[in-house]
């Protein structure tokens, strides 16, 4: 049987990789994917805790996280498209001003 801490450790590593991705990547889309990675990492710990505590609440929570992630992806990608249209770039370092 797999100890809970393994899952949590994996979750933490994935989360930190997500943060790292946010820090070192420049493409908006990749940064966005890093965020998704972080969300997934958190989901894993939810499910792991749920299994550990023998409750389904963790899974329900994951469900909600997924809903929010889906909504976020829809809006976020729409924003990315809008940004790309006005600035012709996906490099976040070039998207550092609020006005054009």
């Amino acid at each position: 049987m797999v100890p809970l801490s393994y899952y949590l450790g994996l979750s933490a590593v994935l989360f930190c990789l997500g943060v790292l991705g946010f820090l070192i990547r420049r493409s908006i889309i990749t940064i966005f994917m890093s965020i998704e990675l972080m969300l997934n990492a958190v989901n894993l710990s939810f499910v792991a805790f749920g299994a550990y505590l023998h409750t389904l609440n963790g899974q329900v929570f994951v469900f909600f996280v997924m809903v929010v992630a889906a909504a976020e992806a829809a809006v976020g990608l729409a924003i990315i498209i809008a940004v790309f249209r006005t600035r012709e770039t996906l490099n976040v370092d070039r998207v550092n001003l609020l006005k054009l």
Partner: protein
Amino acid sequence: MNHNEPNLYLWLIPLLPLAGAAINGLFGRRFPKKVVATVGLVFVAAAFLLSAWASWQLTHLPLKIPHIEEHLPWITAGGDFRVDFSFYLDQLSMVMILVVTGVGFLIHVYSVGYMEHEGGYYRFFSYLNLFMFFMLTLVLSSSYLLMFVGWEGVGLASYLLIGFFLTKDSAANAGKKAFIVNRIGDFGFLIAMFLMFQKFGSLNFSDVFSKASSLPVETAGGVGILTAIALLLMLGATGKSAQVPLYVWLPDAMEGPTPVSALIHAATMVTAGVYMVARSNAIFSRSPLALVVVAIIGCVTALFAATIGMTQTDIKRVLAYSTISQLGYMFLACGVAAYSAAIFHLMTHAFFKALLFLCAGSVIHALGGEQDMRNMGGLRKKIPVTFWTMTIGTFAIAGFPPLAGFFSKDEILWKVWANGYKALWVAAIITAGITSFYMFRLWFMTFFGERREAEHGAGHDNHGHANNGDHVHESPLIMLVPLMILAFLSFTGGWVNIPKALGGNNHFDEFLSPVLSTGTMSAEPENPSLEVTLAITSVAVASVGLFLAWLFYCKRRDLPDKFAAALNGLYTLVRDKYRIDELYNWLFVQPVVEGSRKLLWQEIDVGTIDTLVNEAADSAQLVSNEARKMQSGNIRSYAGWVALGAAAVVAYMIWVGLR
């Protein structure tokens, strides 16, 4: 509302003019002048008719007096503070609403003609109606607070109307002066209300008066809260009613159109102080000290203003000082607890002073805006109606029987004497003589002798006509009819209160006596022969005034100048209104202005506050200049900070867990 009482629709009386003001104010710009005038007149006329009806009901039905109609709750606070929109009708307020709506209506009618050629016609009528609304609120209110609303409201309307010719600097300044000087008085009124609430727990007239009546009289040794309240109320009254020391705004207020001077600054608003003191007689009667102060202020004002009036050359300013002087009479009456005499004089004064102002307006109108009496003369034939009505007004104010002024002034003089204030009586009788002198001076200078051309240039040009008026013309009928009605009233107005000593029955005093129960001091001895003697004295003094005026300004035209030369210093002092304005300027205005400039502005504002703010801003900028590097706009650096924060939070949590 008490359902056993008939509804007199008192709330409509003030609201009708308000409706007129709203209609004219909101839409009047697009109306033709006729419509504006009609709206203005109809609502005031309706208010007058309603007042008359209510008065008839009050006097002829077995109503409970005072008749109080409560409408909406207005302010409720803290459980025991409650002021409603409720109206209060008794004999006193009945007289007041009749005077206000009656004279007010006549002046509205007059204004239709007088303002014909002025700009801002709708604005004028809107303000005038607004004034009526506030004035009626003032006199009909059933509590000091609602009265204060009217009090402030008439101040506002007065301010607006004094500054009606808003492109003229002097008019705008006069408006501001009136407003600011009135603030001082209002300050007293407010403090008085605070004290009243603190002492009586209510501001409603009924509560306050019943509780005040149950308190002992505060004699000189036991001066207490009632005296304080009374004196503070008197401070309010000196502001509103232009008494010493706060009278300075009223002469300047003559910058407004003449009907305004007649309505607001002669007949109605300025008498609000008298009304308020009379209304608060329950409080004043419990404080002899306050009464003495009131009497002295009134007497000093009367004499003081009368002397200034002798030297003025502007026709409206003479009348303005005359108004101040007459108001002083009323306060003198109040001060000797002869409230009904004060109200009586208030009423007759409303008639004849409105008449005089309107006549002066008619003269000015005829001369195309000329206000300087030195440039008038010989108008008797050219404007006969104005002349005759003005004659009635002049004789009335000078106190010749059987005109209105004689009875009211004489009653005051008698009451002063009868209450034992002999010194005040002397001052008052001198004032009466001076009054007679300056009024006839005005009369002679305006209507007799030869027409004197303008030596002093254009003079006051607040009137739309061409200035050099060879074609002096009588005013239109719509201006003359109010003059005639007011002349009639000035003639007969005194007959309602012919003293018993002269075979009358003091009807007016008895009518008012339930409200103005004169309390402790009305125990004057019945002495008809003395009363008659005093009356004859006052008529004689008035005649002397008439004679001197005739001598100086009709017979021997060179005398005034010689006289002035002989008394050069004194004359100049009086002509310059005792330099009170300059004194106030030096005493109050300059220190305030200089203090504001030097201390508040340059030291405190610029030197301290600005410096502090600038320092704060500079330091904030200094910090921000460093801190803003965090807000680089670079998302990745934001993420870096967030990561740092996350690490810190986790570290803290682990540390807490370990502890």
